[in-house]
């Protein structure tokens, strides 16, 4: 690898670590001008930064704003490279498609938004439906885009039962295991996830990415 290229990859990783979206976009454009394969720019450059921040967060060394900014910078970099990928006909192999939503009757979404950011940054195609979403709408969208995973958030003990209802609905329609369900939110425990037959839960956004990778068989 030429020294220039090596430096470019390193700068790309650093721009993610610093959460610097503008610089990440600039470096992505530069890589296009240099004729760097866009997939290489992602996997050898930007992704290294995301992984680093994820590890740091897991170790208690990095904090939520850094994690989110890194995710945002990653999204911006990928968005810049995407047209090139399409042109070359080598669309980035996505990790999978995920639908995220907060269940009906519940309007909390900071945790879900974080999970969305981290999933996107890790190569998932994320469709975030937002808050207060009825089960049929979530399932309909999942079928429409052929999502492999539904991520369901609930912050209240009174609304977490909606997670169970959605899973029962999927089972009734025989949509599992084609669609996996991961559940999350402050009151959600592993016991709860097992009890309602969800495919898994995680306590934080970094863990959610690992879980999603497992669920699509790419961990």
């Amino acid at each position, binding site marked *: 690898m030429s020294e220039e290229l090596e430096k470019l990859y390193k700068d790309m990783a650093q721009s993610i670590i610093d959460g610097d979206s503008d610089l990440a976009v600039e470096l992505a454009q530069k890589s296009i001008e240099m004729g760097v394969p866009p997939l290489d720019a992602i996997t050898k450059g930007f992704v290294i930064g995301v992984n680093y921040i994820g590890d740091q967060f897991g170790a208690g060394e990095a904090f939520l704003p850094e994690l989110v900014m890194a995710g945002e910078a990653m999204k911006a970099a990928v968005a810049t490279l995407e047209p090139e990928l399409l042109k070359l006909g080598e669309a980035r192999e996505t990790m999978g498609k995920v639908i995220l939503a907060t269940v009906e009757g519940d309007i909390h979404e900071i945790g879900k938004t974080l999970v969305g950011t981290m999933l996107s940054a890790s190569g998932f195609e994320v469709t975030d439906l937002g808050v207060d979403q009825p089960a049929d709408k979530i399932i309909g969208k999942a079928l429409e885009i052929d999502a492999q995973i539904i991520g369901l958030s609930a912050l209240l003990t009174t609304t977490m039962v909606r997670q169970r209802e959605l899973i029962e609905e999927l089972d009734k329609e025989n949509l599992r295991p084609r669609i996996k369900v991961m559940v999350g939110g*402050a009151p959600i425990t592993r016991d709860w996830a097992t009890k309602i037959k969800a495919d898994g839960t995680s306590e934080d956004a970094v863990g959610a990415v690992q879980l999603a990778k497992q669920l699509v068989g790419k961990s």
Partner: protein
Amino acid sequence: MRPKLTLLSDYIIARILAEAYELLLRPGIKVQNEEARDMLRREGVVIDPETNVAHIPASLVQRALESVPREFYLYDLHGNPTVHYGGDSVHFDPGSSGITMLNPETLEHDTTETEHLIRLLKVAEQIPQYDAQSTAVICHDVPKDIQDSYRLYLALLYSKKPIVTGAFTNKTVQEMIDMLALFAGGAEAAREKPRAIFDVCPAPPLIWSNFGAGNLIALAKAGVPAEIVSVPLAGAAAPVTMLGTVTQHTAEVLAGITIHQLAQPGSPIVWGGAAAIFDMKKGATPMGAIETAMLDCSYAQVAKTLGMPTHTYLGATDSKLVDAQAGLESGITAMVGALSGINMISGSGMLDFLACHSAEKLVIDAEGIAMAKRMIGGVKQHTDTLATGFYDEKINFKGGDFLKQKITMQLFREEQYLPSDVIDRNSTRQWKESGSLDAFGRAKLRVKELLASYRRPELDSDQVTRLRSYMLALAKKAGIEELPKLEEYETA
């Protein structure tokens, strides 16, 4: 705007000073040190030859106050000024001179020896909230004659930070001054960049003992900073009223400063203390009582009126365990000390009326100190507009909007103190997975980590040899042939 706690009006402070000057004349101050009496007599002070009570006039005290430095620094091993005595600077150090240490496994108060002091030095060395070390406990495994100098010796070997210490006799204060000079490479170097400060106590009420005054004189002559730790006990060894006790404290400190400045004008000295109330049920001297903190805040205010550097004893507890009482007494009083703008606040880590030390308490207290320091950091304006600038076109009315702003990443560490794992902010599940520990349990883990990560400071080998042979010579004079083998504590 920096928050500040004041308990006294200017009018009351003026009256405290006026009455303190009266006390210095009548009844006067009992001065039990001959050299101090000679110096006072040479200035025309009338001293009763029977009782040794000196009637010190205001004019002499005021002259002393004119020559006293209003600020000075203590320096670390590398000569960096890291502790500022003066103004409203706030520093914390572990409490001094404990005689027992809480055994975290048996919960017994073990008699302290070399290994205990080393453990405390190692832990405090790595906690940024402690700007200075203290000679925290007495090592009972060495003879009495060297128990004070030996603590300083260990602190010099195990720490880079400035040291709050003290001597137990007039002979040993000189030995300790010599030890510091030897370590610094000469008396001049030790004076120029002092590494340590010595606590010196008058005896309440209104007594400067032979030992206390002798220490003041020796330190003044050497130019080594002294810290007057006046210990009036409201209701027993001082008037029951807070204002009466603060006035007596003022008189005791003013007399000390006068003796000190007569010995060497311009030598650094601090207006300090360990005032406390006297508990009328148990006859105890509660360091965790709110009135104790109020006395300290009050006398610091008097000191600040005169522009003097300040010290106090807060952040300790009277509980025997690192429990809820320890947490609330230490946390509340540390906060009072910080809000009072006291330059050096000693006492962290201590239980049981300053008798017992605990490494686990040191790490918990550090969190209380961090909260107190954050508090005096105040509410700051970081941005041109207070809020409107945060709501740009990217706002989509979602809870996570602000997490995505660059300014959040830039400013959150300034706005929020990020506590260590001693403070639990886990979810219940994470807390259970980490062993369902209480603060003491978490502190035990943190102490183990700190002991494992500790590294001795790299010292000049000549310096160490000089220090060791000096200490060994003192030990031999005290009747022992060898000092405790420090190598044995390396993996403590």
